[in-house]
């Protein structure tokens, strides 16, 4: 980075305009639109699993109801709070970098990443519990407490949906780490904050998916 700063590259907190864009506004607009479209594809990716949930909940209402009682409501609620808080942190981080408060932004991003790690930790406690009980998908299912047919499918949907979500938590976390590195190097500032904004947007999506998964899997 130090060498590229020596070569005409953008200075501290200055934007980097690619050759095929005329103005910074145009480039920012393009990048934002691209991110929103990408978020759209993510929603549709999860939509397939939500469809599966809807269909099997309809088929095996009894088993789904019973199985959801066997998830830990305390851990699920804690995780929901952890994720929502992390979303607040990332939003505040975005606000901070827009005002040029690089240090505050970095701290807030670190907090967000810690929340993400916390979420994954709690989730793995939950997973371990399910493995112990044998409340597992498909052919691995040997949980003795639910006898209604279809409980194995509840755990199929549960593991697929939360697993895919956990994968997105890891991806989102990596994105935020990358953004954090940029912040620490002084790449971003009041004139150049789109990367922070988009990393935050992605994180909000990860959060939002959970906000739908939580009531569907734990509450109803």
């Amino acid at each position, binding site marked *: 980075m130090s060498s590229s700063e020596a070569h005409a590259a953008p200075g501290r907190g200055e934007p980097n305009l*690619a*050759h*095929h*864009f*005329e103005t910074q506004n*145009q480039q920012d*607009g*393009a990048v934002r*639109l*691209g991110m929103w*479209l*990408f978020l*759209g*594809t*993510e929603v*549709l*990716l999860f*939509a*397939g*699993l939500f*469809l*599966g949930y809807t*269909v*099997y909940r309809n*088929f*095996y209402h009894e088993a789904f109801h019973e199985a959801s009682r066997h998830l830990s409501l305390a851990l699920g609620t804690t995780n929901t709070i952890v994720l929502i808080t992390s979303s607040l942190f990332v939003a505040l981080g975005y606000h901070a970098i827009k005002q040029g408060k690089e240090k505050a932004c970095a701290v807030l991003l670190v907090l967000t990443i810690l929340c993400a790690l916390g979420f994954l930790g709690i989730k793995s406690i939950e997973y371990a519990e399910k493995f112990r009980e044998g409340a597992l*998908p*498909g*052919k*691995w299912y040997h949980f003795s407490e639910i006898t209604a*047919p*279809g409980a*194995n*499918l509840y755990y*199929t*949907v549960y*593991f*697929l949906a939360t697993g895919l979500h956990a994968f997105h938590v890891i991806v989102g976390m990596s994105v935020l780490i990358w953004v954090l590195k940029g912040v620490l190097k002084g790449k971003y500032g009041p004139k150049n904050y789109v990367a922070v904004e988009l990393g935050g947007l992605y994180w909000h999506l990860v959060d939002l998916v959970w906000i739908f998964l939580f009531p569907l899997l734990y509450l109803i």
Partner: protein
Amino acid sequence: MSQPTDLDSGEPASPVVNYLNHDRGVWSWLTTVDHKRIGIMYLVSVLLAFLLGGIFAMALRIELLTPDPTIMGANMYNRMFTLHGVVMIFLFMIPAIPGVFGNFCLPLMLGAKDVAFPRLNLLSLYLYWTGATLAVAGMIMGGADTGWTFYAPYSTSTPETLFPVLLGVFILGFSSILTGLNFIVTIHTLRAPGIGWMRLQLFVWAIYATSIIQVLATPVIGLTVMLVGIEKVGGFGLFDATRGGDPVLFQHMFWFYSHPAVYIMVLPSMGVISEAIAAFSRKNVFGYKMIAYSSLGIAFVGFFAWGHHMFVSGQSTFENGAFAVISMFVGVFTAIKVFNWVGTLYRGSIAVKTPLIYICGFLFFIVFGGMTGIAVATVSLDVHWHDTYFVVAHFHFIMVGAVIMAFLIALHYWFPKMFGRMYHEGWGMTAAGFIVLGFNATFIPQFLLGNAGMPRRYYMYPERFQALNVASTAGSSLLAIGFVIVLIYLVFALVRGKRASDNPWDSRGYEWLTTSPPPKHNFHETPVITQDAHSYQKPGEEVEHVVL
């Protein structure tokens, strides 16, 4: 309209620096972010895929020459039609026109220097290569006998190794999504001054509609093939009726993508036709807005028509009826386009060149294929035709008839733009004759076979079907000869073809405003567009498009 490069020596010297020669060597191609070079690399890739899929198609046709086993057994036949389907759909038709001509022409048509995300564009190509390698290697080494549809529960219980193929399709899906995303953003943000939405060329509108489908539908197939893979490896039971799962759910999820996917294939073709019809009838497009909006219309209703693949899956009569009616709307939008195209040709100053022959072929195929589409969308008829050669013939009329015609039109029409050379018109016409006739000879017998009750995907059949099967195979060899001729004269044109002027068709498309082949950054100066797209109002008069 100058012919500057033929020097007195007769040497085809190329003193002008353009995107092809500004930088040399394989590495400069593999690391390029230039949309034009990426388009050319897509061209080579999809042509290889087409060759591969074509070889498998010929193997299938040879097998079907006799009622008994001819050259292969049942299992090999199943693998062959799976290979043919997967290669032709995922490796050829979906990326063909967007990947090649979308990449090459779209930024030129917008007066832009590149697509919005050039590096992402290169990533799409690499993902395509990765997915293609995985899928093809997986099919050849492990075998896959499910057909391109991967229907559960067969796909989750077949002894063949399916996982690499599924992973390949998943990765190809990513490539498709990123291309679509890139194009949408490019169209929104990189239009040159003067190009409002109602001045976009119709090819751009078609690519726009296509990209929306790519972005919205493809994630679902990605998830679906992954679920099949997990099901096969991990036994999660999601599509397994013995564990309480529902195989029909697979069909819904699969067709939620794969029905819109046929519009990913056919909409860009429609865009190509709109461009070429204007250029070769030298006339403003009749009903510009109608053609533009009907592309969006097809993209929209295409999302709600998937159930017509499932009329015999046990879904309710109400669902069947609803899906049938929605499917027919596609016919309405397509008809709007066809009437407008014919209206454009009407009293135009027709230039009878090779692309025009294919345009006529396209119009015939889309009407004939479209009408049989309305027929199979009718529930009471489809119950009889379902899974017969009638559906195979209908599908190939639209997909091969329309898409291949459009691909060939695009290849001929933009050949001078891409390479600065002209192909040989006489050979072009000859090949077009072979292809259009061969195509009819291949697939009209299949309509008759299907109507007589011959089911698809069997390597043996009763003797009474033989005459028509032989006719179909004969037709397919005409088709193959046609493609070989095209390949030979185009390769020849690439090396020794007559040098083309900047705008050999005297087309009014914005992509012709720059030199052919274009310079590295497309335009020497950003063009300012002052006329509508396809503006041929005053024949013979130079249209003042540009204020530099």
